């Protein structure tokens, strides 16, 4: 089936199989491999993208459902040489370990900050609850959000005793 879909501001027209997920369409047909597959069952959030302005698990959407839609993926962030403010804060706050959950995490944080300029810690936790991370224990990710919203003082640190 033919679909027209705008990804990161660029219009693509492609023939896709009806059962192909949006995730696989992005990764395999468009080569946008920044969006990851962690479970394929809508549980882990590694495949989080913006679908018509809202974050969704792209493994739970068929590519044909994206006909006419606007999709934003991690590749659409930080166009040009520098990182976005969220990415910079995550870099600064050691928020990345293996990095496999990171693109999805960036998208969820972006949506959070679009809706709320200064989210509380429980609100940050709620926003990234659907993004599993096995490495970091989330704290340094949460601290990046605090940092980018001007609350770096709430950050913890390693104490030497």
């Amino acid at each position: 089936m033919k679909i027209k879909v705008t990804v990161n501001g660029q219009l693509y027209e492609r023939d896709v199989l009806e059962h192909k997920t949006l995730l696989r369409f992005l990764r395999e047909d468009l080569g946008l491999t920044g969006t990851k597959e962690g479970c394929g069952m809508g549980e882990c959030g590694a495949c989080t993208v913006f679908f018509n302005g809202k974050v969704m698990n792209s493994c739970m959407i068929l590519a044909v459902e994206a006909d006419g839609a606007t999709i934003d993926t991690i590749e659409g962030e930080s166009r040009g040489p520098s990182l976005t403010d969220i990415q910079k804060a995550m870099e600064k706050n050691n928020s990345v370990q293996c990095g496999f959950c990171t693109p999805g995490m960036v998208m969820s944080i972006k949506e959070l900050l679009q809706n709320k300029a200064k989210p509380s810690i429980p609100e940050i936790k709620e926003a990234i609850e659907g993004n599993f991370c096995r490495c970091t224990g989330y704290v340094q990710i949460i601290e990046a959000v605090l940092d980018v919203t001007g609350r770096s003082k709430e950050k913890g640190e390693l104490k030497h005793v």
Partner: protein
Amino acid sequence: MFDTVKTSDLSHVGKNGHREDTIEKLTGEAMYVSDMLLPGMLHAQLKKSPHARAKIVKIDYSKAAALPGVRAIVTGDELDYRLGLYVVDKRILARGEVRHFGEAVVAVAADTAEQARAAVDAIEVEYEVLPPVLHHMDALKDDAPLVHPELGSYDYMAAAFTPKPGTNIANHTKLRKGDVDKAFAESEWIIEREYSCPSVQHVPMETHVAIVQWGKGDKVNIWSSAQSPFTVRNLFCHAFGLSHSQVRVQVPYVGGGFGGKAGIGIEPLCAVLSRKAGGRPVKFQASREEEFSLLPCRSALTYRIKTGVSATGKIVAQHMTMYWDSGAYADYAVNVTRASGFSASGPYEIPNAWLDAYTIYTNKPYGTAYRGFGHVEFHWAVERHMELVAQAIGMDPFVFRLKNALRPGSLTMTGEEITEHTGNVIKCLEEAAKAICYGNLTDEEKARQKKTGWKIGKGVAALQKAPAMPPFTATSVVLKMNEDGSVLVNLALTDYGQGTYTSVRQIVAERLGFPLEKIKVAFESDTDRDPYDWQTVASKGLLLSGNAAILAAEDLIKNAYAVAGEILHCNVCDLGHDGDKIFIKHHPKKSVSFASMAVGHALPNGNGVGGPLIGVGRYIAQGLSNLNKEDGQGNPAIDWTYGAHGIIVEVCEETGEFHVLKIASVYDVGRAIHPEIVRGQAIGGMLQGLGTAICEGYIYDQQGRLLNPSFTDNKIPTAKDLPLEIECFVVETPQVDGPYGARGVGEHSMISVAPALGNAIQKATGAEIMHMPMRFEDVWRALRHKDPIDNWITKSPIGSCRSAPEARPNG
């Protein structure tokens, strides 16, 4: 090395420098094997066993072979190879018999994954179902079916392991110290209890994935999400009888490992498909369900401890029996048993000790290394036991721990003497206790307790772990100077998120006296281009590779000085350097830049001197020995990292629900090379440890089918599961032979979280929990003195899980 230099006198070590791998990971540019496509690449899918134990009567793949796009089908019958690091007991595909639910039976490679899946569906396998042996304690019974009747014919590392042919015991580790019988006879108290925990999945966010191309002339190229490229190569060559020069393993970015990607995994499977498909590259990526049931997990444990205590509260004797459930294959699990055996008492002095640790085969998915290498599981037992023993003898558990903790002059169970440089577990315990105001409730906590009606309790637990590795484990680092005087670091230790490369970079910059920006650690590992490293496991990476990096830096400087002496016509001993140049110390203006010597120096007349500047560093573990197989005595530990966790919990006695209000962690890391990375390891491991403590675990039905191989039914902690407050501390007792005094801490953060929580719950409510995880219903039952529900092998034929095989619409 350089263990006594103060952190304030160092330029890079001890500072929070930039992490080199972050930008590509934040932008999605970092390429993992799961992102890779090669020209002509085929996709593999597997036909897996629906039974825990069955004879394979017949495999018919004629229909599958005729389907479009199918390029190769392989069964176990045509693969006469065995794989394994310590006990060579695993085949690439099941042959003759399947030994666990989810085991690979037939493999298909096709042009697309859909075609491969359709072919798998068209394969018919006829089984004769056999009664499985599921519980490891049942597997020890005389009439238990043998999981490996041919165990006696397997190769194994005889210096370290003792399989028992004719039984389900893959290894028996013994430790004997002192006179246990006499000491028990003289004990004032004897307390005996049993503790247990189920199998658990590592859950790397990137499932296992490999691409293999078996080219003409038997040249094999492997790209894998592996922790240990050289061990993959070595075991691969042994299995297939290939020369090491014929096989190349490359490891790009890896989406988490936690031990599950140590050793060898799915690479041989892709290789035999590629060979059969005429050399086209074949990719296999495990689905999340396959990650649970096809790939290895953490072994379950039953641990029985009997402790004799003197009238003054000193432990005088301990009898310990560990029953480790390795599942269907024990290759790696035997070493978990061995390493747990020599550390089995935790960081306490046991003058008279008797230990038997068994690795037991069952018909379940198989066990392997998992962050902590057995220590998460047995510290659950040891640190709950310390609590219960203290309670039984009427002593405060914290005081009881301090009284028995290892200190300078103590002998470990293997007879190693603890010195003042070994690390300080007592300080770790004290700081953890202090951080949670152990022993009493603050006014705020009292008010909270009054308001909510939930009981607040506090618990501590200590931990220890040394790297579990062959005593001669070695590594190497090569530094190559680029044309502009910057330096490239090559090493085959892999960095799958833990941040070791960042620390190695700091160490190289520190020793060279260069700015950090001039040092790059090449991220992808490649057995054809990188110098050898054994494996990225055991929290040994920073210590061994950090030392090799120091030696490589010294070698590079020595080589550069030799050239500079020639150019400047002076004695090498009169030279000094900064980040750009080498100069004569008493005539600093007489200098030569590193850049002008980096790839060979041209004298004014055009004569060349020197050559490309390279530094080589090799480091091998020092002073370690094989343990005596009869009494376990010897020196297995290059370094002991000690630590402790303190937890505050509030519990609802009516429902068994609880919240973790605070966790404090303290580790004696020797020196924190990069404090934020240490903190990242501390928190990440703590939450993984909390997952093990509160919710994770494999559940089987009575036929041995795994009922919860998904995130729907087997949750891992999310951001909402975080404790309200987390505090991370380090003690820094320098490791004399560690790089700048550092020792490893990658695994330790996961250890002893569970017992600290169990102890806190007991303190709050009196609930005695002996099995982890501690789900709310387990707390509720313990509070009512009901036996725990042993639903890890559920009594009902169909479990309550939505993904139970019978409950699935398409079988």
